[in-house]
């Protein structure tokens, strides 16, 4: 092979170099989330005030138009919700009675509370991933406000997702409707385990996938599905949604169907971040 005298760097070479750097970064961040956060920190701190500003301006303009467009839907929704409130209030009183009963029994048996009330931090959504594949959102609270990776996020009483990276002032949340997310779940009353999986094509109809329910387990349609005790990322007892259209799978061993999420993902605006992280018993790395 002849050596070329001119040491000119061709664009092709730069391309290969940059591609190699990108792939290296991908591998590095896949292996260790800390590299990830380190790389994000510098970028994000300068970007965050701008993002927030744009978000406020955008909401100001689009919000007004949106309100007009959705007014009709909101009116009918309001009617429906009023009925629901009445129904739930009635239910709630019944549950409160039962709860007091339960506490008495628990005290008698000296059992500790399995589903304690978690500490929450409210956060505004300032950005969403603009590619139409992944459903990740960015909020205006970060490690300065006590947010850390793996914290659970809820809205409207339902599970929204999990924090995947934080900087000083922002946090990125991967939502459970994301195609690559699985949540270990269980039926609220039956305690039968199942798995909730995000699916982009199902989400078009506002649904998630519900699977791996043993055929004889007592989960039926409209049952409340909550996060499982055995999940290693999610705190137990957070409402995810309601089971729908369950059918026995072709293997005749398991049931699967859909889940209607409790959180309204298309109108998310503020979320609550639970600042408790699930204890898995693994030593801290």
């Amino acid at each position, binding site marked *: 092979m002849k050596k070329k005298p001119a040491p000119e760097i061709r664009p092709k070479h730069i391309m290969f170099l940059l*591609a190699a750097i990108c792939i290296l970064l991908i591998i590095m961040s896949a292996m260790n989330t800390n590299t990830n956060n380190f790389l994000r920190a510098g970028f994000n701190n300068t970007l965050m005030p701008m993002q927030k500003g744009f978000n406020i301006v955008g909401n100001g303009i689009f919000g007004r138009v949106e309100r007009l*467009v959705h007014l009709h839907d909101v009116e009918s929704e309001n009617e429906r919700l009023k009925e629901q409130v009445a129904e739930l209030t009635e239910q709630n009183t019944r549950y409160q009675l039962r709860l007091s009963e339960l506490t008495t029994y628990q005290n008698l048996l000296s059992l500790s509370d399995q589903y304690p009330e978690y500490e929450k931090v409210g956060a505004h959504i300032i*950005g969403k991933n603009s590619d139409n*594949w992944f459903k990740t959102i960015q909020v205006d609270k970060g490690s300065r406000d006590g947010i850390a990776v793996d914290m659970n996020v809820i809205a409207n009483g339902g599970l929204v997702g999990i924090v995947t990276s934080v900087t000083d002032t922002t946090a990125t949340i991967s939502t459970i409707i994301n195609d690559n997310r699985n949540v270990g779940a269980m039926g609220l009353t039956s305690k039968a385990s199942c798995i909730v999986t995000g699916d982009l094509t199902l989400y078009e109809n506002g649904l998630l996938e519900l699977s791996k329910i043993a055929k004889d387990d007592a989960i039926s349609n409209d049952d409340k599905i909550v996060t499982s005790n055995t999940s290693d990322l999610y705190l137990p007892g957070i409402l995810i949604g309601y089971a729908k259209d369950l059918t026995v799978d072709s293997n005749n061993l398991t049931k699967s169907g859909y889940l209607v999420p409790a959180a309204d993902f298309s109108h998310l605006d503020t979320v609550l971040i639970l600042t408790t992280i699930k204890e898995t018993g693994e030593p801290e790395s």
Partner: protein
Amino acid sequence: MRRFFVYLGVVLLAFLLQNNIFAVSNLIDATPNLLLIITFSFGFIRGQKEGMFIGLFCGLLMDVCFGELVGYYALIYMLIGFVTGTIGQLFYAEFLNMPLLLCVLSDFMYNLYIYVFGFMVHGRMSLSVYFAHVILPEVVYTSVLTLFLYKVFFRLNEKLEELEKRSAKRFV
């Protein structure tokens, strides 16, 4: 130097517009990809090197704010900058409807990359469903914006070249 700051401003503006306004708003179902338009426009007009670096920067921004893996978006944006830069060497910038063709080409490249590495790898095989529901709407929205934005970027580049020539003469 001036060119660098102009690029920086344009990319940041597009990033903020698409992620913090368009995507957050519930009025639009599919968000047009402004960063992609910038990448292929400048790649085509200015060549491989500038296309690559603008693409890399656009991708890194996306990675840092929304990606789970840093480098995932950077890689594809960078490659699109390179490919359109290569096409730019073969065709005139004024070639009829070239921007539209480039837009469709790079948007397909981009979405196919995300589909293959983000979805196909965990067993989502129905490309046709994703094509109809995700890729096509985005390509349409982005193409419509390209018709308008490519002209803006083309003018912007002409302005910059003019200024560069003028300041070069001053030093002679």
